[in-house]
């Protein structure tokens, strides 16, 4: 029977199945971070258990780490304890950890593929919802809770029910100045934050094929913002080249005969032409424009040419109340043109948009220009130490600094403000991160999600602006 990519990945990892369809699914790679693992390791210790295959684990502390001077360690004692706890647990159980200061350190979802620790055909989990990112590499990847982190450590498996299949078919090519981030924001705007609940979403079509691997990671990263635990993209030449490019040296990639065999297997990782999807969403890439969120959910999004919507136009009472609350929280008035909204801070980084191509896209806009006078702070936070080094080798850091941006050390930073990087109450931010929830970037902070180029343009203009006009 014809299978989808998701079916193939799922079937290859089923250890056994209960009569009600609950499957024991084998996990090939377990990414671990400091926030969702301490209680799992504690559970393991209390039960006297040890990791089933410790070499499948790769750990990084990314949420709590400072992005400024690290020579004195972490100032916040509670954050420091959590980071130290991860180090102790990894040392005790023999799990590889890249610690702060290691050149390979960074955001777990940037480092995984960068190191080749995530490979096509794998099942990848992490106690983090943005694990969906790795589906861009032809993997089945999804976020789990801490109990499941402990379960994977102890058994290398998870008890799971299979999701339904959705295909988001993006036809045509993205216009100049419209990026992977705009594409996924537009999809979320269309299907809603619960549109993908219960589904694994395969992103397909000519626009997805044309995206780089990093662009595909941006798209899959935010599948969870559409409610889907997993996003996926079929393996093609770009996937193989991403892992096989000798110049990039990804240490976990298999070599020699193993590589040859792996590539043959990976080439089969695509949906069969006659595979049946439970739901199909078609998107016309050519019609897309740069996107800006206006509210407190990623589905509250319009194009830069649009206006803040008017709740009075929304017939559904629950939705209308949600819009009204969002406008009050965001300090916005209905029908305001998006390009009239001034920003206070700019954040470029995160597991969504902290890779080298993201920094290049932002730098292209910033080059030779200065931050607008009303911008209080503009941060560039590379997704990993290797991204940072690559950017510095290209001189991107100089471009950002010359414009007035701060060039920081890698970590999750102001995507969720667990470290010192955050918004003050009422401050408005153009952010390349993934969530605009209330308080996400700091209590009372107002987040607008945009692409790296759009964030850079807002930093220069001082307000949201169509990057396709003046800047590209």
């Amino acid at each position: 029977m014809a299978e989808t990519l998701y079916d193939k990945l799922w079937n290859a990892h089923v250890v056994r199945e209960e009569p009600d369809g609950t499957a024991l699914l084998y996990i090939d790679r377990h990414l671990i971070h400091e926030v969702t693992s301490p209680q799992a390791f504690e559970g393991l210790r209390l039960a006297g258990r040890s990791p089933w295959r410790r070499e499948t684990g790769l750990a990084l502390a990314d949420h709590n780490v400072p992005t400024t001077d690290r020579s004195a360690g972490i100032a916040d004692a509670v954050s420091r304890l959590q980071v130290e706890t991860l180090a102790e647990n990894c040392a005790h159980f023999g799990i590889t950890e890249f610690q702060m200061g290691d050149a390979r350190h960074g955001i777990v979802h940037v480092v995984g593929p960068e190191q080749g620790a995530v490979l096509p055909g794998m099942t990848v989990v992490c106690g983090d919802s943005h694990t969906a990112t790795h589906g861009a590499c032809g993997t089945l990847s999804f976020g789990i809770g801490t109990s499941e982190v402990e379960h994977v450590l102890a058994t290398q498996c998870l008890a799971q029910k299979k999701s339904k299949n959705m295909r988001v078919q993006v036809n045509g090519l993205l216009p100049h100045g419209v990026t992977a981030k705009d594409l996924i924001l537009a999809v979320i705007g269309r299907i809603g934050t619960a549109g993908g609940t219960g589904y694994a979403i395969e992103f397909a079509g000519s626009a997805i094929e044309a995206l780089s691997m990093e662009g595909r990671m941006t798209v899959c990263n935010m599948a969870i913002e559409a409610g889907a635990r997993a996003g996926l993209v079929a393996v093609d030449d770009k996937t193989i080249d991403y892992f096989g490019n000798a110049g990039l040296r990804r240490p976990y990639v298999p070599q020699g005969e193993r590589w040859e065999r792996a590539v043959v297997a990976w080439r089969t990782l695509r949906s069969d032409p006659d595979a049946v999807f439970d739901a199909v969403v078609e998107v016309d890439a050519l019609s897309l424009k740069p996107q800006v969120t206006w509210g407190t959910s990623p589905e509250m999004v319009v194009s830069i040419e649009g206006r803040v919507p008017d709740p009075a136009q929304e017939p559904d009472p629950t939705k209308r109340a949600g819009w009204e609350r969002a406008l009050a929280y965001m300090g916005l008035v209905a029908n305001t043109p998006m390009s009239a909204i001034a920003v206070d801070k700019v954040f470029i980084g995160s597991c969504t948009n902290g890779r080298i191509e993201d920094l290049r896209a932002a730098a292209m806009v910033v080059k030779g220009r200065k931050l607008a006078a009303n911008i209080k702070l503009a941060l560039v936070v590379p997704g990993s130490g290797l991204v940072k080094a690559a950017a510095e080798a290209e001189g991107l850091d100089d471009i950002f600094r010359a414009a007035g941006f701060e060039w920081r050390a890698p970590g999750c930073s102001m995507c969720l403000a667990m470290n010192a990087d955050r918004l003050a109450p009422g401050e408005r931010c153009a952010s390349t991160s993934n969530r605009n929830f209330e308080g996400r970037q700091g209590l009372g902070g107002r987040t607008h999600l945009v692409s790296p180029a759009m964030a850079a343009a807002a930093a220069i203009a001082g307000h949201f602006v169509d990057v396709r006009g003046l800047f590209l």
Partner: protein
Amino acid sequence: MQPFITLNGLVVPLDRANIDTDAIIPKQFLKSIRRTGFGPYLFDEWRYFDQGEPDMDCTLRPRNPDFVLNKPRYQGAEILLARANFGCGSSREHAPWALLDYGIRALIAPSFADIFYNNCFKNGLLPIILPEETIDRLFREVTSAEGGYCLAIDLNNSTVMTPGGETFGFAIDPHRRFCLLHGLDDIELTLKHTAAIRDYENRRRVEAPWLF
């Protein structure tokens, strides 16, 4: 894990759709390395007027009197009535931990986000899905009730009974219900299949040696 069999509990209505786990328990409290103690910080940014910090004594903090959890009539609630897509966003299991630590044992909503839904079952917190119309009705009944409005949940029969004696059935995965009724440790169950896991690994070692 504490088993869940029946519950006759006071209901608190939280009338917002798409409540995310950042709202349920804000990020600063995730720095804790424990599983307990999150209850006082449940919905922290909505419950209090000031900025909450880990280990803060919440007894003297300024409370938002308009927030439903702060209303006297809902004190001691064990069932949270909510709207669609409850628990979206971050995978943090601190969200069910905070709800449980506060005293919530069951949630009733038209839909839940996948990861959150899954996390609830690992902790003995029962998420019940009922149709949108039933939820609308329950919201009306809870808010218009004189005094405390209680619902009786029977997991064995998968039913919710109103004070008027009306009963609604709910669907729940048999495996999850079984584990919840018996308070079973998932890991223990999986380790019964050690031989099957080893067999799978031996097969995969041949098929996909680069994974080992």
